[in-house]
């Protein structure tokens, strides 16, 4: 009880101070501690996300920006377990908790308790709906739409498209697909003639595309969700059909294939996805909130786009089997915040 009132006091004081000095002289956060609550670490994206957090956190602590930036991952990736973890983090006295949530709603009780105790809560990627928390969301719909818009610039005459979707029933899959269909509706020179589920995995995508290809007319472009472009390319090659314009998703194997094709026949495309380093963006947003900056509750993550010009550079910095990444800086976070104001 005593701690909670104390924390609320400190937080409101910090907020008042920030409000008064808005912008120019933000409060010092050198004694603040930020924790990352993560629910899952079982794929390359999450591993890269945790690694970005650790590298950037260690640097921030060494520079005296914050006192601690610790990462916690639940062992069974379940919502109740993460709720307990968040409650533990409140008890451990962290000033801010950055969350990649197992469920958008099941953590709301714990998040509310954190807010009531004066803890700043920032959710990203897997966001929470509790109004007191900040959300750094991914506009998956815009991502799907921008794929079609890119195709429209490259293929002004239009043609038939093949859509590779993700894992059925997952919110992200619905959003990206809705964006793609919206893009196609606006660019009516394109028509989606086939749609398969590739589950964001190269082997599944390859099998699915190989299965549908014989029934399809000529395909000029493939719109994807990431993690499926290389598999699609292999299926086209195996069927002996010309390689269409495949939009890629920043995976290392996709970029390697792209580079090989470019060197062989001048292949040109676009690759886009969300960088796992978004965890570092969430860190800086939490730091800015702690420093007293007025940050809007809803922020949007920029996509990481890889073009013909940046391919070599990105490929060189991406470990084999991983995914292209960037570590966001304080300036990037401020830019995102300013953009949302």
């Amino acid at each position, binding site marked *: 009880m005593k701690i909670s009132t104390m924390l609320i006091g400190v937080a409101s004081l910090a907020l008042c101070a920030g409000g008064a000095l808005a912008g120019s002289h933000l409060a010092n956060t050198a004694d603040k501690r930020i924790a990352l609550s993560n629910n899952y670490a079982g794929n390359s994206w999450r591993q890269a996300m945790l690694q970005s957090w650790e590298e950037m956190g260690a640097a921030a602590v060494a520079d005296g920006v914050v006192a601690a930036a610790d990462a916690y991952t639940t062992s069974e990736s379940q919502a*109740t377990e993460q709720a307990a973890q968040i409650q533990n983090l*409140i008890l451990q006295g962290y000033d801010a908790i950055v969350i990649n949530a197992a469920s958008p*709603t099941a953590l709301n009780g714990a998040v509310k308790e954190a807010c009531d105790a004066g803890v700043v809560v920032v959710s990203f990627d897997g966001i929470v709906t509790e109004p007191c928390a900040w959300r750094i969301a991914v506009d998956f719909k815009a991502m799907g739409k921008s794929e079609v818009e890119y195709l429209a610039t490259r293929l002004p005459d239009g043609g038939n498209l093949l859509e590779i979707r993700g894992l059925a029933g997952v919110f992200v899959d619905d959003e990206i697909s809705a964006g793609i269909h919206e893009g196609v509706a606006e660019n009516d020179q394109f028509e989606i003639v086939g749609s398969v589920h590739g589950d964001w995995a190269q082997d599944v995508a390859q099998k699915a595309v190989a299965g549908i290809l014989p029934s399809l007319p000529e395909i000029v472009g493939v719109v994807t969700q990431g993690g499926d472009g290389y598999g699609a390319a292999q299926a086209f090659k195996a069927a002996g059909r010309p390689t269409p314009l495949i939009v890629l998703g920043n995976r290392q194997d996709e970029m390697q294939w792209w580079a090989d094709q470019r060197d062989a026949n001048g292949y040109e495309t676009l690759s886009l996805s969300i960088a796992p380093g978004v965890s570092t963006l969430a860190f800086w947003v939490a730091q800015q909130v702690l420093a007293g900056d007025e940050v809007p509750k809803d922020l949007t993550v920029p996509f990481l786009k890889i073009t013909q010009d940046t391919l070599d550079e990105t490929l060189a910095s991406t470990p084999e089997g991983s995914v292209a990444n960037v570590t966001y800086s304080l300036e990037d976070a401020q830019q995102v915040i300013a953009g949302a104001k």
Partner: protein
Amino acid sequence: MNTLSRYRIILPVVSLVVLLAATFWMQPRAMSYFGLNLLFNLAVPIALATMAQMMIIMVNDIDLSLGAFVSLVACITATYLLDTPVLGLAMLVALILAYAAMGAMIHALELPAIVVTLGMSFVWGGFALFILPSPGGASPDWLRALMTVKPPFAPMAVVASILIAVVTHLLIIRSALGTVLRGVGGNTRSVARAGWSVLKLKACAYGLAGFFGVLAGMALVGLTTSADANIALRYTLLSIAGVILGGGEFVGGKVSPVGAVIGALTLTLAASFLSFLRLSPDWQIGAQGAILILVLTARLIFSRKGAET
């Protein structure tokens, strides 16, 4: 036997006290009204689920569908009970009756409970997904108020745990019904010869399990404020571990409601303690298992000594 029954409750208490002392030493902030509540409030639904599992283990069966069942209850609570309370309540009562029917069926057809409940877990899971395909819903206000109430002297989590322990102790250990139910686990044949209908008793035990499962799901929604179809899947194994940790045995109708509540609290605390230790998540499941084995080993040593004297 006398020493044995005494040791049965001493051991869970000692494990909880030791773990609690270690947690307070690691994290002095936890030693407050606010801290204790944060530490234990998610243990309340686990304790209720443990009670449900105990009813089943008491009659020599095991329930692998409990986690899915609690998830389903949570989904109903966060949707129907909120929008149309009468319909929601009717659904929850129907679920309790379904549990009782499941118990009767297991007995009448002499089916292995482990298979039937495993199968039912998919049925519950399917219904839960049907009701709440994507995470959402909201907690009824009265339920949220009940789970966040701040009683004087001790936090809600502690008061609720004591209440659950006392009520189930009276029900299972003191009441006539409880004694016969434990008798079903101890020696089914002699209970049947004494003129009881084992079919009705098993249905009763399963019905009680369903009742506590419903309470667990409702308590969970009161804490999380919303539900999803997978919210309580880990309760299946947690509840079994809680019963055993609290001094229960898989066969023979030997269960201890007070011990099982303490077992549930200990399991919750163990997870928090390991998190305070900053142990890597890769090791946490293993460490949790190690704590379980440690307590069970201690129990074996004690019970051997108890048998010698």
